[in-house]
């Protein structure tokens, strides 16, 4: 547990309203590739909140009020421009018996880290059904497979029967069958859990805004590169890599499908909420997973197209370039200039600035490992270099390469944030 002594006055003796306006402007300027007054800092505390608060990660996930309290305290102590806590909580996943996630205290020790359990949840022989009607396949075949409490949905008639007008009503009796009814109840529980989580999320950012903190870049809709969409929760790593060789045409056709409905989702989300950001975490496109030739055929075309269409619809993609993208930066330079943003984990951040400085707002710059295992001098010196080189002429948001700060030492985080404020002034 880390004892926080909150400072008596806020940054620059300003009011929360002034701070909120300034910080929001700072983030907006960086996003638009303009030069703000100084480099904005975003902290995604994640499990670091549990460490600082002396509670288990399970409690952090499940006690929303406690999480909010710890987040506010941490934000006030470090005074970044924007802050966030956890990405997700287990409510809906537990309600449906989600087999593809593990949360602390549920399949993991109370202090474990949330993880995905990847599997081949979609089999090679499912491709035809997926291509024919992804929604019908997902609800009647896939959900019963991945969500243990929704197994009853496999008893539903083909969903196309819904188009049978008054005759479709003849089929409604199936909803009374015990397994289907149980699935609907579980779904209802998940709806309640998710709605509560959404409300808590909203309240969190409202409370942070009242304290003077801008909205993090992560907040908005979430979609995936079509290749990752097919890989992460459907075919799994082994399956998708075999598909590249065994059924390339089907894979490409499936990617086109999930490009279309994901775009419709993100555009509708933008219209309904007014929120401009769209988070796209990437997984299998980085250096090392596939050859450049395969990348050009299977990964990049739909990801590029996705970002272009989002931009056309006044949405700013915030893309997490996980891993190393050093060999692929030239492709990223094809994206609409000044309209996209990217968080870089392990790429050479100086090279990223050189190649993409006039294309996208760059986020990142600090390695999580340095905040855990480095020294104060090292952190200060590195921060100075990043501010000077990557921060040059704006278009940069300082943050950790991984947007989750478990294990980071508070005293080093303080040194880093303070050094950014010192060296990051334009």
């Amino acid at each position: 547990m880390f004892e926080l002594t909150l400072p008596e006055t806020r940054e620059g003796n300003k009011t929360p309203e002034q701070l909120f306006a300034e910080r929001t402007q700072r983030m907006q300027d960086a996003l638009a590739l303009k030069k703000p007054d100084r480099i904005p800092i975003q902290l995604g505390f994640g499990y670091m909140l549990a460490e600082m608060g002396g509670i288990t990660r399970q409690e952090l996930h499940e006690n929303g009020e406690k999480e909010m309290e710890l987040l506010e305290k941490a934000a006030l102590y470090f005074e970044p421009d924007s802050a966030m806590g956890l990405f997700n909580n287990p409510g809906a996943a537990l309600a449906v018996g989600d087999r593809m996630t593990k949360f602390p205290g549920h399949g993991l020790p109370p202090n474990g880290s949330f993880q995905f359990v990847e599997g081949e949840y979609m089999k090679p022989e499912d491709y035809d059904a997926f291509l024919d009607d992804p929604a019908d396949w997902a609800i009647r075949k896939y959900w019963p497979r991945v969500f243990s409490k929704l197994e009853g949905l496999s008893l539903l008639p083909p969903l196309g029967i819904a188009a049978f007008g008054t005759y479709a009503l003849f089929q409604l009796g199936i909803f009374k069958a015990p397994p289907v009814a149980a699935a609907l109840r579980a779904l209802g529980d998940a709806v309640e859990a998710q709605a509560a989580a959404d409300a808590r999320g909203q309240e969190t950012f409202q409370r942070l805004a009242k304290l003077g903190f801008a909205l993090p870049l992560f907040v908005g809709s979430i979609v995936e590169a079509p290749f990752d969409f097919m890989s992460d929760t459907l075919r799994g790593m082994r399956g998708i890599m075999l598909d590249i060789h065994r059924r390339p045409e089907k894979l490409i056709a499936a990617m086109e499908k999930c490009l279309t409905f994901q775009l419709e989702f993100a555009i509708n989300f933008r219209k309904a909420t007014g929120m401009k950001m769209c988070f796209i975490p990437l997984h299998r496109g980085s250096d090392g997973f596939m050859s450049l030739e395969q990348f050009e055929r299977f990964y990049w075309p739909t990801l590029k197209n996705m970002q272009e269409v989002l931009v056309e619809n006044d949405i700013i993609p915030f893309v997490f370039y996980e891993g190393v993208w050093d060999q692929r930066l030239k492709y990223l330079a094809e994206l609409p200039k000044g309209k996209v943003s990217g968080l870089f984990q392990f790429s050479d951040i100086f090279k990223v600035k050189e190649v993409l400085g006039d294309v996208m707002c760059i986020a990142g710059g600090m390695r999580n490992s340095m905040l855990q295992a480095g020294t104060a001098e090292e952190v200060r010196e590195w921060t100075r270099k990043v501010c000077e080189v990557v921060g040059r002429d704006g278009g940069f948001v300082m943050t950790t390469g991984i947007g989750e700060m478990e294990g980071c030492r508070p005293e080093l985080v303080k040194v880093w944030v303070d050094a950014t404020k010192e060296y990051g002034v334009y």
Partner: protein
Amino acid sequence: MSDELVKAIADMEESRALAMVKELLANGADPLAILDDCRRAMEIVGERFEQNVYFIPELILAGEMLKDISAEVKPYLKQNVSGKKNGKVLLGTVQGDIHDIGKDIVNFMLDVNNFEVRDLGVDVPPEKFVEEIKSFQPEVVALSGFLTLSYSSMKDTVDAIRKAGLRDKVKIMIGGGAVDEQICSYAKADAFGKDAMAAVTLAKGWIGG
């Protein structure tokens, strides 16, 4: 020995390779020679992986072909055969982390480079590593991790090995998604490898081969 079979496997011609194996077996070919062809093909796959010609799709497909061919050949084998290995490597993803992609690639590459690998899987507690060092007696221990959580698990594992009095018996390498040099000194491991080839180079440097 069939150069054509070696080429088919190495060039990722899956159905052709499998058809050739069936034909060879039906015509009374030596099953051991077929397995030897597989080994030669896997060496080529490993080399192409090192040269950045092949990537994960090819490693996985090669693994599939090897499995399918072995299954075809097995009924024809009279006894199990195993050659002399370069040395032993104990491998696993550290406690709290269930990622296996990087670990599996390291396994594949060490295997094609003739190391005997014992893979403990994922989420391996420190005491399990200690226990297996005692029974398997590897020269090298390789710790994998993807999550930032693995930093402290790696440290704990090295610590447990030291406390068990086994630290000078093994060389310890670490690697994986979020791991770097800094974590190597933090965890007090002997070396950090940025990819599977680095793991092979390190193992060869320590053991020879």
